[in-house]
């Protein structure tokens, strides 16, 4: 019963949050100087490279149920914020070229795991959440405009990530509780699509992604 109530509260929160988030997406066009928090929120929300893996991570966590999945999301956003903070101040290091392919790789790995509906050892799942939190955080942090506050920007990043991964978590958990088989398969199909997108983009990597 409490899980049910919590589910509803989360769902309502997510719907409200998204309505809010969508509004800010419009604001992005009107004024790019909406502040560090919105900049941090918008940067991952307007790039599929970040949207898809975050949604998929939520699905992966949600396949284990709401209670077990929450910690994975927490690990992801901690790594996201820390890595964005690290990336923000300095000049780009030589290995920054590895970040975009790793982020595309996160689509393949996370989507593939959702498609396989494979129950990973918990430690490995957390390690993946930390790794990809760090790579996505770095990519977003490196894009921080110089005049914005890095901690507030990171907070916006975390809000956007929780919004998207939270969606995945709640949807996958709710679908897994239904009686028929097809909702669980639908979650796996979504994972398969995300992984397929990642593989296709890796195939295009030589042509498009690597181009300046």
């Amino acid at each position: 019963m409490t899980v049910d109530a919590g589910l509803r509260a989360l769902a309502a929160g997510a719907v409200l949050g998204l309505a809010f988030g969508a509004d800010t997406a419009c604001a992005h066009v009107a004024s790019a100087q909406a502040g560090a928090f919105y900049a941090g929120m918008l940067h991952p929300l307007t790039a599929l490279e970040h949207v898809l893996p975050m949604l998929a991570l939520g699905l992966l966590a949600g396949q284990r149920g709401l209670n077990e999945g929450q910690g994975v999301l927490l690990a992801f956003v901690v790594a996201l914020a820390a890595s964005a903070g690290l990336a923000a101040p300095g000049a780009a290091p030589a290995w920054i070229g590895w970040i975009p392919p790793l982020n595309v790789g996160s689509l393949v790995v996370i989507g593939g795991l959702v498609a396989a509906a494979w129950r990973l050892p918990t430690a490995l799942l957390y390690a993946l959440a930390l790794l990809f939190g760090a790579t996505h955080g770095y990519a977003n942090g490196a894009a921080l405009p110089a005049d914005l506050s890095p901690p507030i920007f990171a907070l916006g990043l975390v809000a956007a990530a929780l919004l998207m991964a939270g969606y995945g978590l709640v949807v996958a958990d709710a679908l897994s509780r239904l009686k028929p088989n097809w909702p669980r398969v639908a979650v796996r199909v979504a994972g398969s699509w995300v992984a397929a997108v990642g593989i296709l983009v890796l195939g295009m990597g030589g042509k498009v992604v690597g181009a300046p």
Partner: protein
Amino acid sequence: MKRTISNRYPILAALIGSLLPALALAHVGQGELSGGFTAGFTHPLLGLDHVVAMIAVGLWGAQLGAPAIWILPVTFPLVMAFGGLLGGLGVELPGVEIGIAASAVVLGVMVALALRPPLWVAGALVGLFAVFHGYAHGAELPESADPLAYALGFVVATGGLHLVGIAIGLIRRWPWGVPSLQAGGAIIAGCGLYFLLPHLAGT
């Protein structure tokens, strides 16, 4: 218990539905994103040889029933993307156009005759064709579009074609649906033959 389950449907609908405006709004000020998605989404829909083969995959999946109907939509996009990877990397794969046209013929015949080979045979056959289809699209990818948006549109459109095939295939629940489904398979095989013959004559 039953009541709580039925209570969840509105929540789910709200959750999933509320994602749609976000996707639409994400297009604002993102010309490359929407352009890439549209290009990717329409690409598989505009090649009739691809469309009939993908629908045939769905029809056959529905005809074979569980577990094929569940395995198919999960594994096909992955295998197809692997083919796309080969195409994108420029790996040589001869006879791709013939393979695509042949896939419509073979899959159409399978549906028309309601053949039920062992699951691994069906899987290997569909997987082989998936590589051909993915390869053709991977080799034709435009260089200007946002690659992720293009790939997403492409995968969603192909997955949608499978779902259409599966949905049509559900008519076999009714007595008149079984022969209708087989007739559909025969039409698809005919289309495939129409595409195949010029390739065999020309090259």
